[in-house]
């Protein structure tokens, strides 16, 4: 590859504290913007939460209504992410391996939930899946109510988290070598065996990364879920909506405590996703 240029060589030899004095202005802008927009707000939130006595913090964080919203938010999000894990992988597979009419169009529209504002998504999902909507009217005779129930929340979460899984799995699937599969075939493995024992294991960390990304988005989602849900406590009230309601009642400490719970979970998920990506890369280099 390229040789190390003299300027880099010099930079490495100068001690760290001397380099700190002549930080490039690009760094200064980046750090200043991150501080104003990200670090100070996060610090404000943790400091606000720390003014609560631990016992009271715990009481708010684990109150019945809060626990019910975690239950709805996290279990529905896990369900949505796992379902998308299966179907998202299938969609990625179909897009990578098969040729069929309109494939390009279908591939491009997978990103629709990224581009469509969430309130529009909520509005149209609530209409389509309502009792007299296009799909809801078919489910209603079966006794399945979707809009304004927890199922509706799941539908909205499935909608917004699907592209994360497809777009994470797709490039990895594309780069996977056909030779290994072909070798398995030559050795007499059936299609099913090839899939389970040859294709799936190296793909698994990637699928998990996609599921974690989708889950993280589904947990935080507000726009589409608030519209399709009836926001009834203990039924389909999700945690972000509870924060919103607390704020509307000027209950800042209540909002902050639940906000901290959500924020901590997204931080943990971020770590998990980084770990999963490192794991997937390790597979890659083997």
């Amino acid at each position, binding site marked *: 590859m390229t040789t190390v240029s003299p300027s880099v060589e010099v930079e490495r030899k100068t001690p760290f504290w001397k380099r700190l004095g002549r930080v490039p202005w690009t760094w200064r802008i980046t750090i200043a913007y991150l501080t104003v927009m990200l670090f100070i707000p996060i610090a404000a939130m943790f400091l606000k939460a720390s003014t609560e006595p631990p016992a009271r913090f715990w009481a708010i964080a684990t109150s019945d209504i809060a626990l019910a919203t975690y239950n709805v938010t996290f279990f529905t999000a896990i369900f949505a992410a796992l379902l998308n894990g299966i179907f998202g992988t299938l969609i990625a597979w179909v897009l990578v391996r098969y040729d069929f009419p309109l494939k390009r169009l279908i591939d491009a*529209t997978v990103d629709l939930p990224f581009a469509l504002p969430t*309130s529009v998504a909520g509005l149209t999902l609530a209409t389509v899946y309502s009792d007299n909507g296009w799909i809801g009217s078919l489910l209603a005779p079966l006794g399945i109510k979707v809009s304004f129930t927890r199922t509706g929340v799941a539908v909205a979460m499935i909608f917004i988290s699907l592209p994360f899984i497809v777009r994470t799995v797709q490039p990895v699937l594309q780069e996977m070598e*056909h030779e290994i599969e072909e070798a398995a075939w030559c050795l007499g493995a059936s299609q099913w065996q090839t899939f389970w024992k040859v294709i799936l294991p190296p793909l698994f960390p990637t699928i998990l990364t996609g599921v974690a990304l989708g889950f993280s988005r589904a947990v935080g989602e507000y*726009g589409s879920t608030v*519209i399709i849900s009836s926001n009834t406590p203990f039924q389909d009230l999700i945690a972000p909506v509870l924060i919103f309601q607390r704020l509307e009642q000027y209950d*800042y400490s209540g909002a902050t405590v639940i*906000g901290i719970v959500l924020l901590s979970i997204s931080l943990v998920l971020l770590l998990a996703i980084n770990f999963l990506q490192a794991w997937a890369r390790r597979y890659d280099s083997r």
Partner: protein
Amino acid sequence: MTVDKPSFHSSSGSDTEIAKPKEQKSWVPIVLIGVAIAYLALVQYIPAINVFVQAFSKGVGPFLSNLTRPAFLHAAWLTLLLALISLPINTVFGLCAAWAIARHKFPGRAVVLSIIDLPFSISPVVAGLMIVLLYGRNGWFGPWLQAHDIKIIFAFPGMVLATAFVSMPFVAREVIPVLEEFGKDQEEAARTLGAKDWQIFWRITLPSIRWGLLYGLILTNARAMGEFGAVSVVSGNIADQTQSLPLFVEDAYKQYETEAAFSAAVLLALLAVVTLVLKELLERKTRIKDVE
């Protein structure tokens, strides 16, 4: 590439290659494609088509009259303004961050990358809450702002902050890989020839990252115009004052003005369509996503 491919394969490397082995059952691809399309239809296509059908269900006349309501026009104007402000701010930040990260090797680089991605993983409601805790009446800067008669929460500046927050990482994220791939040889060559930093940026760096930058801008714009959660927390959602288009959609829907909601939704859906088309064009141009 390996030479010793099994003889029953065409070595073209095309998608159909895999369908040739004798054990492949011909119905498998058809079933899989069918299931994939059915799932996408249930979750995405039918709801997307529904937006357009509902908006024009009573013809074009009512649709147009909905679009000329003052509340709608104001919301559309605000949405445009939000994008117009947060786009340049985040572009400057994104370019600086991308340059700083892609052009320097330092310990903890992965951590910095994750920090830049943070606004994506923070729930929009939590983002809004953080802004309220800072600039709200009881917030850190609340008393000072009140003393100087500056209103941020339940006003336009708060909406700008929320929009800028949620759309922060797109430019940096799209530009970093392009910058890394491009390398810095040409920049250093220019520097040896006596070019100034600014000249290097305009004449060498910018042209080489332009497609990645444009890609980031499109995504930033889509998110800025479409953001709902964070903006609704800080704006107070007052019609004719602090209501952006996504908030207008929800408000109209809540007040059983479904037609007005869908009329506005169609505009936002069109924005999404334009975004997708531009994305696809850029992806083909830059091969960010190598389809075949």
